[in-house]
């Protein structure tokens, strides 16, 4: 089992209950380790992608743009410019003579054609190397076109996905404070770190509407440039996910004195707790908000719980492993699985921090494997060791589970099923149930052979 783990990666793996946790994280992926992790460009692209009325231009050769073309489930209630893939498609001649002229021309053409409210220009590896002055080109185009044209300094090699989050937040922060906020309610929030996958943000916004809370900006799901511009008018920032937009919240705290709280809309407790935290924050200016929130939660739970109980009957005692992008999500998932009677035996993430892993250690059962920045061989070794019934991850992890004959639940940004909120919890339970309970698993070699062995042994007795 251990031969799946390279010596240099051993300190990125921890088993709970076996001494103090001191997991190494936030370091460069190891060469040749086949990491599941992407790059800085990926991080910034993920965060900014769902701003639907902005132009997203990738300055580089074609690959970076094409591999991020409309693969995500981030929905828009209006414009859908984000679903197109724009690139300067650098050629050899541009690499030799520089790509600034081409970038200018591309912006000129695309801004005229699509009339976006702003443009984000992503820098890729090669742009960092050939040294195009992105900032100068963007500044000049801003003046020429009269819209914000924002450079996103996201050269792939300059760190991991996390640095990409910061690059995205830095670019976005330039928009904050550019719009009038005189009509914003004192009971108002910004939703940060939600990407409106399969319309999830609409579920959450509806909860806030019922609570009497105005949502000023969704950052970035179903996002709009103007909303980001007036987001400094909101009283409170709600930061979801493992810090993809945490940097932005911190910048807004520093410059505009806006407080933030970290929330999660996944699972039952965390969803309810997030709403209660918001209610608590506003209770002095709106004393009835707590009661309204309690009623909302009660109403939703009375619909949800009987359904969950039905699924739980089948799922009780089944084992789960998960490998997610941000580890904050893992906290909520862990609790959500407990509601389904399931036991989480492995948790991994691409971008966890020391604090995140310490929290995971605290809430996990003893013997749970915690892993930072894993790869297919490690993941498959853990799945086998723990003999799990379900694996949670993204597109790259799916075939690893399936090859081993293990159920899989897609919980990354490409999912097209809403899993947030109380409705989402029901979808989640249904999906988990339909995967774990499918009869197909009795035919896969790993299970079939096990069943044969058991039958054979039983026959011998």
């Amino acid at each position, binding site marked *: 089992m251990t031969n799946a783990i390279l010596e240099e990666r051993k300190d990125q793996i921890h088993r709970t209950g076996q001494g103090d946790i001191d997991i190494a994280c936030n370091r*460069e992926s190891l060469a040749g380790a086949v990491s599941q992790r992407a790059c800085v460009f990926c991080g910034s692209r993920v965060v900014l992608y769902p701003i639907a009325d902005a132009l997203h231009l990738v300055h580089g050769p074609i690959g970076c743009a*094409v591999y991020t073309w409309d693969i995500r489930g981030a929905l828009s209630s209006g414009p859908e410019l984000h679903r197109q893939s724009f690139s300067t498609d650098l050629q*050899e001649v541009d690499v030799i003579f520089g790509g600034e002229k081409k970038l200018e021309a591309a912006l000129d053409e695309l801004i005229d054609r699509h009339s976006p409210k702003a443009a984000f220009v992503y820098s890729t590896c090669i742009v960092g*190397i050939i040294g195009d002055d992105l900032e100068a080109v963007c500044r000049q185009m801003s003046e020429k076109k009269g819209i914000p044209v924002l450079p996103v300094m996201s050269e*792939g090699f300059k760190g991991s996905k996390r640095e990409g989050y910061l690059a995205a937040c830095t670019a976005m922060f330039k928009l904050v404070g550019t719009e009038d906020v005189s009509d914003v309610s004192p009971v108002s929030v910004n939703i940060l770190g939600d990407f409106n996958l399969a319309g999830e943000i609409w579920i959450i916004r509806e909860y806030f509407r019922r609570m009497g809370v105005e949502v000023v900006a969704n950052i970035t799901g179903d996002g709009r440039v103007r909303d980001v511009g007036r987001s400094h008018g909101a009283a409170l920032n709600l930061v979801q996910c493992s810090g993809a937009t945490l940097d932005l919240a911190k910048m807004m705290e520093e410059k505009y004195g806006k407080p933030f709280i970290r929330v999660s809309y996944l699972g039952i407790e965390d969803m309810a707790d997030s709403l209660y935290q918001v209610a608590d924050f506003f209770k002095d200016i709106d004393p009835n908000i707590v009661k309204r929130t309690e009623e909302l939660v009660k109403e939703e739970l009375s619909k949800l719980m009987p359904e969950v109980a039905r699924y739980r009957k089948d799922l009780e005692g089944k084992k789960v492993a998960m490998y997610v992008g941000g580890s904050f999500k893992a906290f909520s998932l862990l609790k959500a699985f407990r509601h389904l009677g399931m036991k989480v035996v492995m948790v991994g993430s691409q971008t966890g921090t020391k604090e995140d892993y310490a929290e995971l250690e605290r809430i996990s059962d003893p013997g749970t494997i915690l892993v930072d920045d894993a790869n297919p061989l490690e993941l498959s070794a853990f799945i086998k060791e723990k003999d799990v019934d379900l694996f949670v991850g993204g597109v790259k992890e799916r075939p690893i589970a*399936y090859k081993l004959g293990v159920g899989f639940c897609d919980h990354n940004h490409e999912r097209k099923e809403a899993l947030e909120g109380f409705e989402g919890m029901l979808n989640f339970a249904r999906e988990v149930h339909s995967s774990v309970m499918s009869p197909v698993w009795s035919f896969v070699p790993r299970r079939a052979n096990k069943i044969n062995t058991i039958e054979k042994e039983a026959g011998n007795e």
Partner: protein
Amino acid sequence: MSKVKNKVERPNFVSTTNACKLCTPLGAAMAFRGVEGSIPFLHGSQGCATYMRRYVISHFREPVDIASSALGEKAAVYGGGANLKKGILNVMKKYEPEMIGVATTCLTETIGDDVPMILHEFHKEFGDLKLPKIVRVSTASYNGTHTDGWHGAVCSMVEQLCTEKAEADGSVNILPNMISCEDVRELKDICDHFGVKSTILPDISETLDGPALEDYVKIPSGGTPIADIKNMSAASGTIEFGRCLGPRTGGVALEKNFAVKNHRIGIPMGLRETDVLFDTLEDITGTPTPRRYELERGRLIDAYVDGHKYVFGKRAVVYGEEDLVTGLCAFLSEIGVDVILAGTGARGRGMAESIAAVTDGVASKMPIIREGVDFQDIADEAGELKPDLMIGHSKGYKYAKAWNIPLIRVGFPIHDRFGGQRILHLGYGGALSMFDKIVNAVLEKKQTDSDIGYGYL
């Protein structure tokens, strides 16, 4: 005769919107996956390998492990040699591969890493270890498309692995271009029925479409055995598929180095291009085409007759890799479908001439041919041309939906439908299956659009 236009001649269009191509290293990684015991390795930053894995996985629904030298900022400044060596050692430790296929990326090409020299040093430093074969290919992503990466990798494997003249053994080499797993299986069957030993390079039929397993295998079974690649100089001939190939290919290298005659034919799509394949196999083996394929050919013509009225005069937009587009044009011209626009993201390999050659004598007119285009360009022109059908990979869906016409999915990538790896494009069987699909798409469209709802058509 058609005009070939590309962006260079249309300076008012400089940006790319919704590209109709993928990048060079992706093609190389896919080709390296078709060799037994092989693992693709991208020399660049971590993101490239991860993105490409993700992309390839979504089509094949198989684990696709692609290693990376995971260059960080320091390596980008001081050179990636150390990371490349360390990465290879780690891959050796964990995967125990027989071959590592190293492809460069835009980053390492631009910082000027001398990969042959780094690998030479690597062999000197670690010569005491049991080293796998290491094949390298230069794939700057600002040069060409994924097809170029594919052909480059195939050529590199031939040049770097087949280095000695082997004793003639009457076998045939097939370099099949970017085709599906099912297509490779079809080719193997054809060779088996001809009774000829074949080396198909690459062979992705098992490595990218494997069975359910008891254990996670580090490297999937199947693929072209390295011993067979070494032995390609023993063949009686090479058949390489592609009318739009560059001057440097595996077939050319084998002919130049070992006088193995190279037969360059189109991807065998449709009746006439498949006839060329069978004629070539007859030539090389001296064996007549087995009866089962004569029957299959007969059934294909029978189907063409049965279905001709449904499709005659329909107007199709076709897009994708140059050779796939050429093959589709060959096939469509035979069934009376007018290709009104044939587009590719690649350029400069003579697609117009190829299409003219394969449709000669049957097509009612030549399509408008566009090289170096993206979907914005295709849509600008095709929208006015009022097509009835789109034929190509999943990426055209948005446009087919906007025009309310069927999209017949072929080629790569197919990630909005199931079973892309099992689509048969080649041979008489492939033509039959594509014909069925097209006729049925036309019938379905007619039924859906009709108020009457005939249930008997």
